[in-house]
């Protein structure tokens, strides 16, 4: 009965609710209200407009591809950081969080300068006929940048806590190295990998600051959905902006739900008898 002893329940919960109400719920309700004012048919019509469709396709498709790349690269980095010892490992470990710490606008202009046709990386790529800046590829590069830490940081602690005896047992029973990796380690890491993927995906879908500089923002080609929302707001098309915003918000809720399910799954996983 700890409820009776500790004070501050009403105060802390009340303050929390008031803050959440005013900062989060009330503004979100305004969005839901504006979007519902258009009606379902109107909403679908707005979303079916070629420009909106292209922007949503690019945001979701690009984010999906970037999250896949980050899953592979992030797992590799987490593996190297946990399993191997080499000079500079701690620095590398700290730098994983760089995309969290570097403001998105800074990342945006830096990536653009780097991949522009006269940039350090853009020049050699351009000579081989590959254009990155001001194309969809550039959008992908920025999305990889912002989503990178998520897979590393979800996989790393689970990998570190993994009992080495499990794979040693597999190997002493005759499994080859790659077999113990594929059949023993990878399945155990699956909830963490999927969680990292979902987080990287959510971040990249909504990303704005780092993408808009490198994207070139050509309508129908390299224009992302958040930018289209901004454009519509600037044209005072509040209904159109709200419709796009509602779609992205529903997606955010869906990701939260998936993450909650993944967490429950990994908890059950942890409770399995060894």
């Amino acid at each position, binding site marked *: 009965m700890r*409820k009776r*002893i500790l*004070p501050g*329940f009403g*105060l*802390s*919960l009340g*303050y*929390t609710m008031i*803050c959440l109400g005013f*900062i*989060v719920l009330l*503004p979100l309700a*305004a969005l839901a*209200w*504006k979007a519902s004012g258009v009606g379902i048919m109107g909403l679908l019509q707005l979303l079916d407009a070629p420009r909106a469709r292209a922007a949503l396709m690019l945001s979701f498709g690009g984010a999906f591809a970037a999250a896949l790349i980050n899953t592979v690269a992030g797992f*590799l*980095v987490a593996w*190297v*950081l946990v399993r*191997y*010892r080499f000079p500079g490992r701690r620095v*590398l470990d*700290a*730098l*994983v969080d*760089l995309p969290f*710490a*570097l*403001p998105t606008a*800074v*990342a945006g*202009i830096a990536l653009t*300068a780097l991949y522009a046709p006269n940039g*350090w990386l853009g020049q050699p790529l351009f000579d081989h006929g590959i254009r990155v800046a001001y194309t969809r590829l550039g959008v992908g590069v920025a999305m990889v*940048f912002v989503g990178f830490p998520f897979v590393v*940081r*979800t996989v790393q*602690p689970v990998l570190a806590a993994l009992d*080495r005896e499990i794979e*040693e047992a597999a*190997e002493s029973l005759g499994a080859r190295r790659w077999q113990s990796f594929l059949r023993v380690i990878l399945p155990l890491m699956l909830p*963490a990998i999927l*969680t990292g993927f979902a*987080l990287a995906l959510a*971040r990249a879908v*909504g990303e*704005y*600051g780092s993408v808009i500089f490198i994207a070139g923002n050509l309508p129908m080609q390299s224009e992302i959905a*958040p930018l289209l*929302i*901004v454009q519509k*707001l600037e044209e005072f098309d*509040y209904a159109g902006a*709200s419709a796009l*915003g509602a779609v992205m*918000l529903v997606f*955010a809720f869906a*990701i939260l739900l998936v993450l*909650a399910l993944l967490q429950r799954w990994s908890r059950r996983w942890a409770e399995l008898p060894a």
Partner: protein
Amino acid sequence: MNATTIPLRQPRRSRRVLHLALILCAVGFMGLFLILPLATVFVEALRKGLPMYLDAIAQPGSLSAMRLTLWVAAVAVPLNIVFGIAAAWSMTHFRFPGKALLGALIDLPFSVSPVIAGLIYVLLFGAQGWFGPWLEAHGIRIIFTATALVLATMFITLPFIARELIPLMQAQGSDEEEAARVLGAGGWQMFFRVTLPKIRWALLYGVLLCNARAMGEFGAVSVVSGMIRGLTTTMPLEVEMRYNEYDHVGAFAVASLLAMLGLVTLGAKTFLEWRHRGELAAHAPGSH
């Protein structure tokens, strides 16, 4: 973390080659995608030499942007500290219906696009928004003022401190607080003498991350700012304005200040993780 298990079957040599290859891949990827962009910021900022760099920073536009950025963070971060502590206290010491929902709501701003964070305030306080007509009738402006910048920043950074404190306070339990109460401590006495010392490093950790995000936020504030130079442009917005004006050195000079803030935050964060690991929460996945 013992990294030296003896390989069971493969010869040692090929194993070492594999290790080296994997390490090089990881370093290469991070070098290409993370370190090179960071280096670019400083190289571009200093491209025309140090005097030009200092000159770009000393311009009135950058100075007022710095002032505004500091001001927004100085309002938003303390409010978030109070919110984070209150939320963590109610979430970890009491049982009540709807707790899981409350937790999900606290996390929500993490998965919402920054642009949405700006959009919802425009829909609430803008000329065509819910409160727009009422505000206009009373001569109050929120959108395109510093108030809107603070609101959007608060939305974006709301989960940062609560997310650090909740897992830690959950792990610490209520025993010590209960003991303090039984021994006759008042509510605030218990909080300042028992709870706060237990959570101070995690709180500092959360404040660091919250502050870095508050000062660096771009998408949400750009939607509600209106970009009035000297009045509603924070440093990230100043970066964009200069970049769009083809003031390359100026944009990267302001950006380099933000990058330094990021590096200092990373350094302090790493130090806290190294020095006070036991007093920080085990890191919840993707908590920032």
